[in-house]
């Protein structure tokens, strides 16, 4: 018996080792060239995703390089930007010799760390609430660094990428009201696609996350069923919600693994995970009523027509632009407006002015979108507010 059990385990270990390799997020950052890839055989119809003009916006440097900065910076927070951050920091340090150490501990941790002042900058996928601001040691600037998308991803044998979803249908699926793939609501959206009579294995995050926040914010805007099932508009969105049905996976990699392993699964993932794992994913109806394939080009459109408040903290989901992918969001760098350490403050401003200019050209290679022109300008304006012991860091 024991021998038999052991014999069964040996191949299992081999499988597990292979699997850890595949799950490694570093594979995502395979350098430039990815861009807006189209999955072969996918059925997306006519989309603007082939358009790559916006991928390298070529923003000019807002200020000349600042000398005399510190040689090291520390940051912590969002896992969503972690692959991009490591690409930025690597490239930046090759150019300037300044080392930026970033710990991917989650957005909640990023906020907590900047409140405590244990890092030079925090990073969060949602802006800080006034209550969170009040707990910090002074006014905190929130600077958007990139745009990303959350994508419905599924595992159905024989069904290609490009399945059409509306926010209401996704909301009903996540509320447990639509239970099978051949539900009339789904077949009506996807004529010509043979959807099986299988139950939908709903997959969601088991940990709190900015990804969840974007996804549930979109569902809350589009699906009254989702809002009423969750018990109201304040319960139906956020980094954690009380998922009524489904399987939980920890992190994007956990959700991705669960989808890959489960026939009939439907989950939500960051765009770069979907493309890196070659998963099959859907298109989502936007406010203009069009079904939009998620890609760098359509995500970039999400900021069109949005009026930003002074602190830039606003929702980017459900954009009115006819070409915008509706489940888009950003991630904010958080740091104190007044820097007490001159060398650190100078280095921070220099690093983020690089990220907001040259750095933006790298985004598309990891399937993040660069900030649109307007948002980039607003972000630079925020950076200009930094003071060092009361004096402006740049003039």
């Amino acid at each position: 018996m024991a021998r038999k059990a052991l014999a069964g385990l040996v191949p299992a270990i081999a499988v597990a080792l292979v699997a850890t390799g595949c799950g490694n997020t570093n594979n995502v950052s395979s350098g430039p060239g990815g861009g807006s890839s189209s999955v072969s055989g996918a059925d997306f119809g006519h989309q603007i995703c082939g358009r790559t003009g916006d991928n390298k916006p070529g923003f000019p440097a807002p200020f000349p390089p600042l000398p005399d900065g510190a040689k090291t910076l520390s940051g912590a927070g969002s896992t969503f930007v972690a692959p991009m951050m490591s690409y930025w920091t690597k490239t930046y340090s090759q150019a300037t010799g300044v080392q930026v150490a970033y710990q991917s501990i989650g957005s909640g941790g990023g906020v907590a760390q900047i409140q405590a002042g244990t890092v030079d900058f925090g990073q969060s996928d949602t802006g800080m609430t006034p209550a969170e601001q009040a707990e910090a040691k002074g006014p905190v600037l929130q600077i958007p660094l990139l745009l990303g998308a959350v994508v419905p991803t599924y595992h159905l044998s024989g069904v290609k990428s490009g399945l059409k979803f509306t926010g209401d249908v996704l909301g009903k699926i996540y509320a447990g009201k639509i239970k099978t793939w051949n539900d009339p609501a789904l077949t009506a959206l996807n004529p010509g696609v043979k959807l099986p009579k299988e139950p939908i294995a709903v997959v969601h995050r088991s940990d709190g996350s900015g990804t969840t926040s974007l996804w549930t914010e979109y569902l809350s805007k589009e699906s009254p069923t989702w809002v009423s099932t969750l018990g109201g508009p304040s319960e139906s969105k956020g980094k954690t919600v009380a998922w009524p049905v489904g399987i939980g996976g920890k992190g994007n990699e956990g959700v991705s693994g669960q989808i890959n392993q489960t026939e009939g699964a439907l989950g939500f993932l960051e765009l770069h995970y979907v493309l890196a794992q070659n998963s099959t994913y859907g298109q989502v109806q936007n406010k203009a009523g069009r079904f939009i394939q998620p890609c760098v080009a359509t995500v970039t459109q999400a900021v069109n027509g949005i009026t930003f408040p002074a602190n830039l903290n606003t929702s980017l989901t459900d954009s009115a632009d006819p070409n915008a992918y509706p489940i888009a969001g950003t991630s904010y760098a958080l740091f104190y407006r007044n820097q007490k350490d001159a060398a650190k403050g100078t280095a921070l401003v220099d690093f983020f002015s690089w990220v907001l200019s040259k750095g933006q050209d790298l985004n598309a290679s990891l399937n993040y979108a660069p900030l649109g022109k307007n948002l980039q300008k607003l972000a630079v304006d925020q950076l200009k507010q930094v003071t060092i012991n009361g004096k402006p860091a740049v003039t």
Partner: protein
Amino acid sequence: MTPLADTPATRRRVRARWRDTDTVFRYAVRAAAALVVVVLVATAVFLVAQAWPALRHYGILSFLSSDRWAPSEATTTARHPNPYGIVQFVYGTAVTSLIAMVLAVPVAVAVSLYLTEVAPGWLRKPLSGLVDLLAAIPSVVYGFWGIFALIPAVRPAGVWLSRTLGSAPGIGPVFAGPFFGVSYLVAGLVLAIMILPIITAICREVFATVPTADKESALALGATRWEMLRMAVLPRSRSGITGAAVLGLGRAVGETIAVTMVIGNSVLSITKSILGPGATMSSVIANEFTESTEPFHLQSLMVVGAWLLVIALIVNTVGKLIVRRTGEDIA
């Protein structure tokens, strides 16, 4: 080196030196032993201290009187109802551990009987070693094995169970589908394999304490080998087997990573079906502590941790007591 002269003076000197080294040694081991106690007490104190804000806010018993865990509904002011009910986690821990026990104990008893009574002598040592090796496989590897090997293997059986028993009267809800793989059942299966070595190891020792005279008398009276095991070995070992099972339970109760990977992490309320996704006390902590940003969220996870510690301590103490009593009975 010349031997010391046997005079009262040298004797005193040698004794004094022994006394000094003895004292140092005694203090060193005493400190090491005290450290164990300190760590245990400090862990408990730490958990309760961290959990205290939530315990005070919601009331100690309110955690155990609700099966709804919805951190997003927590606010800094509302006390009632407690959004951090933990009954479903206690339930998940109990169900997965029970499935593991039901599957692992008979197999472990059979394996140990084979190893102590039936297997040829040359095979006993290597085979015991192999069983012990099961305990050396890291938990996370069991998790991977569960996901990539076990779930695809049991999926047809699970789907069949949910279709046949799922609508049966009475027991229907326990086997209700749909079955997607990750579930209490699979978590129980993985745990069963993980606790097999510890139960086997203790059973082996228990069976080895049965006096040879007893076994030989049974055989001399014409008993077959099976009758000898049934009449001479098993009755004497009953409480030892129980103790082994309880110690296995202690391992199953606290197991985290492998369970988290295969249980499906559905935390909102009790999932009745063993084919459905659920959560255990340890899995919810592993999943949520990194982003526990809601009011009293982290503190409530500490409450779960504190209860888990209490349960684990009770289970392990009971197991140890039973095993020790068996030892005395036999001696």
